[in-house]
């Protein structure tokens, strides 16, 4: 089966492909998003919660 793609060996793939292929970029971004949106924000909410006045 002959490949019929435009890119020959050595030609640069599209940016999307290169980004998706970059395992370490994904590792870092995945961790950053989680640590910021879930962990960091969550810890901030707990740390800044006001104390009850027990009315």
């Amino acid at each position: 089966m002959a490949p019929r793609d435009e890119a020959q060996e050595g030609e640069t793939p599209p940016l999307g492909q290169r980004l998706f292929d970059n395992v370490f970029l994904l590792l870092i971004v995945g961790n950053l998003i989680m640590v910021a949106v879930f962990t960091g924000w969550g810890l901030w909410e707990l740390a800044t919660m006001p104390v009850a006045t027990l009315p």
Partner: protein
Amino acid sequence: MTATAPLPAGAPAPAAAGFRTCPITARRIHRQAELLIRVNAVASILALLVGVIAAIGLVLTRWPAVRLLPADWFYRVLTAHGLSMLIFFIIFFEMAVLHFAGPVLLNSRVAAPRTAWAGFGLMAGGALLTEAMVWGGKADVLMTSYVPLRAHPLFYLGIILFAVGALVQTGIFFASLVVAKRERTYTGSVPLVTYGAVTAAIIAVITLLHGAAVYIPTFLWSVGLTPMPDPEVYRMLWWALGHSSQQINVAAMVAIWYLLGALTVGAVVLNEKISRTAFVLYILFISMASAHHLLVDPGFSPGWKIVNTSYFMYMAVLASMLHGFTVPASIELGQRLRGFTEGMFGWLRRAPWGDPGFSAMIFSIVIFGFIGGITGVTFGTEQINIIAHNTLRVPGHFHATVVAGTALAFMGVTYYLIPLIFRKQVAFWRLAKWQPWLFAGGMVVFTMAMTFAGTFGAPRRHWDIGFSQAPFDVEYHPAVNVMLGFVALGGLTAAVSVLSYILITVWSVLAGKPYVAGAPLAPGHGVPGGLTSPPRHTADVDARNAALHGPERGILGVTPGTVVLVFIFLAVFALYYFTNWKLLSFVWKIG
């Protein structure tokens, strides 16, 4: 198909030290990769054995007519069941998957094998230590061990060692990817199955880092060195470990679906960009939905809850719905290109249902999607969770995802691993062919009955819903007890099926006959059809493929059967989802 694909320039020569050539697939397999796969798989099966024995004790206790275990043993065995299955069994198996999807699929070597072995050693030692603490009654705190409940320090230490070992083996997987790329043992991008494993590995890092963050301070508190972690901080961090670890399972499971599809029916990837986008969405967004365990907690605002539980506007649910299309579509396309083109579903009817790898894959897809996915997304909604939190709906859901989804897929792929990696014939072959059917049937009954009981409000993690020793009476609808009976029957059926799986795998590996491709099989033994007669596309595959992609096919396109199936799925999803909003609207006003 794949068997005769020429190897890239950098792939090691056949006689290279430490490699063997697979007689079935002609791949170069690193001996260390093979050994690491085997030892992680064996450890996984041992953990599974502990977990399934515990499961039998649990269903026979929650079945009010039997009530097998006394209260203290129930909670102890529940602790052991959760840890053995959700942490030890499944993560050991995933380490095996990583060593396969990395070095083996890329014709490459394991980077730093001794480090990988050290990681395995830590995992094994840690698991044994924690199991000893649990069965010894030193950790009656359930798998979640929420502070202020307190276990023996060695309980936490065992889990820490396990997590560190898993992080090490995961790190070796990443290192092996780098080595494979540098040594050019493959060209272009990694295969899609490997990409799924990469997704699982990245989520594993997120998981294990949070695990360290929660268990190290808790361990230090348990030995009296530091103050107790705040209970809400603990819950938040624990679930970042606890639920994200299940997302490792989702990614690994989808990777195995693509693998089994390829092996059993020559499943063809429709579009790499779509499939990989789905994996990337998992990497970016799936872990934050750990928040759905915290939706009715006092610690967090609606904003935090809504953003996180939605996997960031449901982008990871989108990913699952993409896989929900691409995986069956790949199977349908592979089958159509083999000539099975009759009608809308001829490709499915004429698929190799007698191949346990195939049947396990299909049941895994269907049960995970229809029962697991739909229920989970529904009561992972901030407000619907009010009627579901801590009821039996929760374990009803996750047994459909991680057990009937991931574990079943893992069982299916084992029937291929035994001949390919252990190089043995599968013993008790007739039993093996039925095993996924038995398991799927049992689990469908189990999960649906449990979910139904939970809808009445019946609690999870609870020894006696007859409340015989409580000051006030609580009478559940009589259906609940009936449902718990069905939970036991379904669970026992599935447990028998798991014990069969363990018997088959252990016997095949220890006492089984060696597998030589082409040689006759021993009586009672077998090997999946995907190996004995690999699926091959027709000679005019390119023409067929072009025709399937042609505009005259209309909107149903390349894979009409799959299109029908996914719309049925969407309809069921919408119906279940909006029914639950309606149910919510009937309860008291709460704000």
